[in-house]
């Protein structure tokens, strides 16, 4: 066939299209920063910015895991309770091991290892029930949300599990100190975000997540091991929850039945504000990072002013979340 069609040359579109959908979360972020600057001269100070970013890092790291889960068409409601259990167990393990290792990094590293292991196991549990048990992710993780929450209440005997003070003193710098003036939580968050973005865009796993979320059948026919990829997203989520907890414990030094309440909602909100589709098939990690920072800034800005009654904080938050997504709404489907 020699006569080829007089094709309009395939447009070499630039890789990044700077359309509304792309800049949506960034625009919302920029507007919030502007608002912050107007409200308070201290807004842009080193202290304030590092404060906001450091405390957003827990949700941030969890939300990056959620980006993968959601992109692959799943959902994990259990992350907040999982964080509480992991924190509780970490604290108990560290307290137990003091007689063995003495006060010092040995105990902390053992605790960290226990935490990451537990996160992985919790992820395996969720993932196995969803993939092998073929139960709706919403239900499985709603169930484990209750189970984890109960577990931490039970372990803490209804109260609070507190880390031994001397150990807490050794551990505290992991949250409060930093490297070259950047607090460790921000560094870890940044590293996880960069790694997450690379995995999503530049590895087969990331591509497979999107494929599964987009059309599970097509993925299966394209020789993707759908169950395994899904399972891995939940394990990744579990491990990232544990990583977040590694930074959370030195900040609070305790865990109770109220630890991590509603984190799941915040994480999912951040993911969707960032432009990932809730039904799966398309995810972007950098968007999630923007979403997390938007949520963090909303809280910060509320503290910078005194006109809004604290009773109405939630309303302000709600309005901003809707506006942030309004900025990137899709055009009417053709």
């Amino acid at each position: 066939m020699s006569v080829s069609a007089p094709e309009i040359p395939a447009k070499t579109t630039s890789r990044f299209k700077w359309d509304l959908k792309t800049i949506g979360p960034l625009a919302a972020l920029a507007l919030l920063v502007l608002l912050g600057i107007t409200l308070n001269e201290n807004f842009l100070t080193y202290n304030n910015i590092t404060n906001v970013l450091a405390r957003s890092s827990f949700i941030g790291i969890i939300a990056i895991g959620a980006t993968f889960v959601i992109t692959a068409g799943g959902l994990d409601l259990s992350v907040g309770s999982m964080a509480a259990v992991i924190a509780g167990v970490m604290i108990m393990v560290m307290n137990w091991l003091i007689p063995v290792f003495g006060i010092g990094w040995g105990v902390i590293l053992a605790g960290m290892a226990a935490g990451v292991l537990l996160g992985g196991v919790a992820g395996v549990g969720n993932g196995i029930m969803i993939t092998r048990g073929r139960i709706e992710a919403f239900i499985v993780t709603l169930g484990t949300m209750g189970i984890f929450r109960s577990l931490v209440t039970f372990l803490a005997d209804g109260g609070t599990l507190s880390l031994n003070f001397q150990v807490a003193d050794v551990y505290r710098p992991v949250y409060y100190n930093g490297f070259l003036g950047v607090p460790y939580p921000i560094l870890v968050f940044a590293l996880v975000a960069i790694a997450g973005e690379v995995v999503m865009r530049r590895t087969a796993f990331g591509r497979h997540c999107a494929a599964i979320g987009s059309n599970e059948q097509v993925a299966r026919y394209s020789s993707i091991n759908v169950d395994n990829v899904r399972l891995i997203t939940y394990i990744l989520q579990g491990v990232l929850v544990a990583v977040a907890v590694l930074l959370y414990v030195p900040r609070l030094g305790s865990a109770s039945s109220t630890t991590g309440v509603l984190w799941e909602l915040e994480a999912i909100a951040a993911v969707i504000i960032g432009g990932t589709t809730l039904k799966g098939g398309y995810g972007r990690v950098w968007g999630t990072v923007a979403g997390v920072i938007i949520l963090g800034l909303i809280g910060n800005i509320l503290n910078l002013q005194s006109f809004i009654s604290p009773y109405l904080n939630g309303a302000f938050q709600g309005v901003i979340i809707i506006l942030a997504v309004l900025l990137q709404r899709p055009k009417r489907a053709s």
Partner: protein
Amino acid sequence: DDKVTIGVSVPAATHGWTGGVNYFAQQAITRLSETYPNVEFVFASSPDSPKQIADIEDMVSTRGIDALVILPGDPDAMTSAIKQVKDAGKFVTVVDRQLSIDGVENLYVAGDNPGLGANAAEYIKSALPDGGNVVILRGLPIPIDQQRFDGFMGSIEGSNIMVLENQFANWNRDDGFRVMQDFLTRFPEIDAVWTQDDDISLGAIEAIKQAGREDEMFVVGGAGMQQIIQAVANGDPLTPVDVSYSPAMIATAIELTTSHFTGGIQVAGRYILDSTLITKDNAEQFLDADSPF
């Protein structure tokens, strides 16, 4: 520059009592701002510990507070963050809940949680000298609840009062109603109900009335909600007493802290507000028509 900024941080109004805390705090702030134009208040109300820590961090780094009045939602989780405020040279007043290390706060204005439980237990023992069956409707599984519960159980120990069962009613009326309904189904003989909180009491009372068993038992709550105090004052046999645990303690703490800066008096130390038993006789002094709680 004698301008003073005082930060006030309390847990969000997630149940009646914290609702009262929010109300009394804001009322005190409005009142004191008028009296002392050179004192500025920054108020924050936070749903959980990380958020509360974030709020006090923001107060220090962006609002330049000189003093902090804080009712920590979860004192263990808040201790090190509050210590940082103290270490930054701010005057710190802690309200209601003891931090997990001593000596952080300059001023401690406290309620007595174990006392709340013990007071209720003492009354039940005295009201049921021949013994009787008690069910307990607890709050949420957090330390305050545990302290109250332990205080109650410690006091009831050794008596002939029998605790049939305890369940969480989450410090709200709907759950108080729900749990009490089921306890009524389950236990044919209940002589007293301890709810440790008046919001729960209101739900439990409706359930008892629905079952028509209001003559068999009485309810002891806690925290001193106006509606219950009024009933106590009226001599309602279903609510013969209440145990005070006033959310207005936050106002006391704010006032004391303000006077530290304005009155030139050094304020420090511990102010413990007792949990007193409110009976028909002393109910009048606890009534306050303006309180929303």
